[in-house]
């Protein structure tokens, strides 16, 4: 039997977040939320790798409202769901998040084989948690995974990063950070929905995973936002209303370098 963990994050729908200019933290408030698309890809990959008796536990860290994202994971086929929620986690940077998630996995699924994550979250776009988590857990890692299949001596993975598509062999006990791919969004079947009704999202706090607020949250974070500002735009803003003059300006702008050299 294989035990898999998929880490998911609930993110605000694009364009609905604001930031507290005093604290530099995201104000999630009542903004509509969704399952981060890369995390959904990770869940889908986990479901594809899953055999009949295998386990796939979805774990998330976030405010209590994150239960909705975990509920969706159960509907889509996850066999269990755990929410790590604690006020002490507020303000965690990527490394503090990785430490908290590693502790949550250690206490909830101590004999985990494979850990799946999205390669980055749409709200922060830092792509730091998977690599940090792999290091904290001491696991080998493959980034930008778009496909994975079990083979005799591990998992064969397709990685699409930058200009290259690579085939990798990854040990069965490892972490895969899943990127975009051609995965088709799964819709819960009636039987999945019925089955998921029997399942509960369990909630744990820092005490349950043996951490104190000093180790995570803003206290446990080495990075902090000191300033927020609107991008500065200093542009001339010359307005041109006709094609001929516009075309002449295009040429002038493009050939400015030659003009300078000549001068």
């Amino acid at each position: 039997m294989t035990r898999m963990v998929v880490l998911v994050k609930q993110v605000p729908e694009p364009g609905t977040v604001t930031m507290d200019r005093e604290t530099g933290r995201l104000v999630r408030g009542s903004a509509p939320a969704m399952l981060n698309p890369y995390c959904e890809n990770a869940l889908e990959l986990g479901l594809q790798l899953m055999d009949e008796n295998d386990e796939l536990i979805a774990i998330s860290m976030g405010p209590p409202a994150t239960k909705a994202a975990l509920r969706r994971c159960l509907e889509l086929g996850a066999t269990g769901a755990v929410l790590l929620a604690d006020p002490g986690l507020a303000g965690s940077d990527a490394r503090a998040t990785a430490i908290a998630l590693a502790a949550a996995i250690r206490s909830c699924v101590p004999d985990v084989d494979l850990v799946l994550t999205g390669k980055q979250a749409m709200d922060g776009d830092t792509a730091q948690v998977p690599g940090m988590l792999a290091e904290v857990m001491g696991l080998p890692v493959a980034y930008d995974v778009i496909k994975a299949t079990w083979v005799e001596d591990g998992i064969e993975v397709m990685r699409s990063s930058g200009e290259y598509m690579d085939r990798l062999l990854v040990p069965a006990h490892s972490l895969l950070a899943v990127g975009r791919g051609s995965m088709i969004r799964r819709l819960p079947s009636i039987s999945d929905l019925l089955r998921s009704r029997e399942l509960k999202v369990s909630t744990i706090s820092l005490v349950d995973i043996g951490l104190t607020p000093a180790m995570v949250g803003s206290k446990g974070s080495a990075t902090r936002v000191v300033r927020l500002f609107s991008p500065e735009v200093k542009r001339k803003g010359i307005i041109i209303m006709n094609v001929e003059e516009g075309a002449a300006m295009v040429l002038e702008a493009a050939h400015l370098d030659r003009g300078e050299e000549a001068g």
Partner: protein
Amino acid sequence: MVWGQVDRDGRLSQASIGLASVACELASVMRVKSTMVITTERMLHMGLENVPANKVLVLRCDHLTPMMMEGHVQAMELAVRDAAPSILLISATPEGRELAPRLAARLEVGLTADCTALDVDDLGILQQTRPAFGGELMATIVSSTQPQMATVRPGAIISDVSLPPPVIESRDLELPRGQVIWIDGSKLKETSDLAGAEVVIAVGRGVGNVGNMVIFERLAYLMGASLACSRPLADAGWMQRGCQVGQSGITIAPRAYIAFGISGSLQHRVGMNSSDIVVAINLDPEAPIMQMADIRVVADAVDVASKVISMLEQQAGLSHVIDEDALKK
């Protein structure tokens, strides 16, 4: 300290060289030396004397292939623990984005991703600025740990320093083979020359239909410019993904950025807002890109492009005649 990334063609990556320049500027403000640490499987064939750094340290080991980051994490950890730099910068290439968080976790330090501006204050604290919310706001972040570590978007910060040739030191390392094994791989697309282009013609949905693309290809050819696009055109397959400018594409800062029929979403502007001159051609004077353009041409993209082409062809015809005259003499 800067990570010197070696590409699959065996050359030091342009992104690393650019970043080394940025590091030099910071180092001179702080009155410290800058070092580039190159981690590589074989000796580089290029001359390292042009690398903008005070010192270049080459760490060599058979397991330091450009495909797998495991060994690079270990090699960089050794280099950092040895030299204890106050700042460590890594290009936010796909490889750098894997290396940096793993290295930060091992060193137990904070990391800021994808910076677009860096600065040091009087106390030597690195001010790391990156876009937040798809570029709507900029956030400046500081680290409380050393080295202060950041990844930097390739091409986002331009710096030009001239230094005497660096001191070059090489060392062979014995590293264990990584647990993840590279089986094979293939190149997805041709590398675009956009990153170093002086003039970029960028096209968006406003160019109308795919049949008009030939006009812009001709325009770019005649102007000696590189052709880029906004996301919808890459999504539609009119141009390759590698030509897409913006948050999910590449960041460029050419001397002139000429946007034809691009509305200019936040995500797009993040990829080009450091350009020296921005010209926007759009029928909608209220389009976001018009608000940030130096020259705002309210006209049809295809009309303006066609006009520029005919002007250039006329010029070319003229110079052709002049050349012939010169030959006769």
